């Protein structure tokens, strides 16, 4: 029983961080129809940001804030500038561009930071007993932080001016423009928030994973699964499914080998895709 509780908690931790990446991915897809293959690489940049701020003695939490701001704003505007000329072109071009960016970022990170895995100590070392297991408090804090960020995202999309406009642009860009909504600014915001979420996830998860150039790859794959299964562009669906996926994978790994769990997850995604292909709409939904 104790093992199950610990595995479920581990699943929640993984799911919470995955939810941040997936929510960002869903947002970008909902607003712009862009599936960003490089999303995981901005997760990686977030992780490196916190690694370097800690190494420089500036503290862990400053690293998290820096990851959100620097990677979110600079990365968001860079990605927007890169993809803007392709916005009315074939979808495949955008996919290839983000795939290319992903490969370039991973290679640059390898050249600049080295291929070795770096570790970041958690900012809170305390542990709480769960049965005979001493469970790290920081891991639980990650779940709480992700829940707060995602709740904030929901409130933003529901009640705040630019959040409402993000949904409006996603649902009917032409009409939003006709009303006077500053569509280009809304697009920029979608890029910034999307990559900011990935970077925050990377920075929060840095103490739990090692930090290395391809750390975002696995996260990205799972995030794609979540976004597709949750309904493309569905912010809340992506967040909830990320938590479910995290828990299912951790619990599943207790009874079947890890790769078999992945196989089952992929099979479920294929089924969901077949079902959704009948009635798929691309919107930022709550």
């Amino acid at each position, binding site marked *: 029983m104790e093992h199950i509780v610990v595995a479920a908690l581990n699943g929640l931790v993984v799911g919470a961080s995955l939810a941040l990446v997936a929510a960002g991915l869903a947002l970008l897809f909902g607003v712009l129809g862009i599936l960003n293959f490089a999303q995981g690489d901005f997760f990686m940049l977030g992780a490196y940001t916190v690694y370097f701020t800690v190494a420089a003695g500036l503290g862990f939490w400053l690293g998290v804030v820096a990851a959100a701001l620097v990677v979110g704003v600079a990365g968001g505007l860079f990605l927007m500038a890169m993809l803007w000329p392709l916005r009315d072109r074939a979808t495949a071009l955008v996919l290839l561009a983000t795939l290319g960016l992903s490969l370039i970022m991973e290679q640059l990170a390898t050249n600049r930071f080295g291929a070795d895995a770096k570790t970041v100590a958690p900012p809170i070392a305390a542990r709480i007993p769960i049965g005979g297991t001493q469970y790290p408090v920081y891991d639980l804090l990650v779940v709480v932080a992700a829940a707060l960020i995602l709740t904030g995202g929901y409130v933003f999309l529901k009640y705040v001016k630019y959040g409402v406009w993000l949904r*409006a642009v996603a649902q009917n860009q032409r009409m939003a423009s006709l009303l006077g*909504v500053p569509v280009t600014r809304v697009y920029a915001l979608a890029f910034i928030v999307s990559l900011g979420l990935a970077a925050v996830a990377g920075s929060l998860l840095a103490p739990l994973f090692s930090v290395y150039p391809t750390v975002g790859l696995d996260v990205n794959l799972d995030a794609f699964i979540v976004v597709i299964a949750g309904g493309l562009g569905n912010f809340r669906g992506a967040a909830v499914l990320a938590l479910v996926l995290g828990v299912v994978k951790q619990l599943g790994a207790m009874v079947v080998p890890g790769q078999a769990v992945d196989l089952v997850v992929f099979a479920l995604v294929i089924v969901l895709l077949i079902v959704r292909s009948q009635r798929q709409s691309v919107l930022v939904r709550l």
Partner: protein
Amino acid sequence: MLELSDVHAYYGRSHVIQGISLRVGRGEGVGLVGHNGVGKTTTLKSVMGMGPRTRGHIVFEDRDLRGPAHARARRGLGFVPDGEAVFPEMTVEENIRAGALLKPRADHRRCLDTAYELFPVLGERRNQLGGTLSGGQQKMLSLARGLALEPRLIMVDEPSEGLMPINVELIAAALRRAVEQGVGVLVVDASFQLLKTVCSRMYVMKQGRITGEHELDEFATADRLVETYLKGEG
């Protein structure tokens, strides 16, 4: 208020609008009628800066009208297109708020109240998703939102198309009220009842050109109006 002088519009090599000139004054209702495909909607889109490549002068309140649609909208120009004019996964209230948020916070409540006053059914369905409204209610929602933003001129494309007579009356009354409040209205429609209620003048279009300008008083019956724009003559 709005003046088009020798405006041409092109979709690729297709010369859709071939040098039209028209004007709409403050507090004036003006109709634009003609067969399907003569360029009425393209004219409205050209004014709004969406879609076709244009040439010629479009002046709004004594200044050239330039830039993307949202910049033109912010100058006080409204456009209610025909079809797909709501945010389907947002409630009626959110649909109106999406527009109201462009105005100062103090005006948000007034925008909602104006919309609900124009079409009370929207108030009754304020928590319903826009995409689940009937076609007529969606037209009311998009028009109510457009008028609630208090544009100085509003262009409306086919507001009565496919609606029951009772809904046409409601929409015509809302546009008439806007005219009486000093808003310029340019409406593309084929409903005699709506044109008679809203407009004092109308232009007839044929094959991308304006072929006639009439006072609505010239037409006592719908048949006479239809005869005129079917001929497309002045």
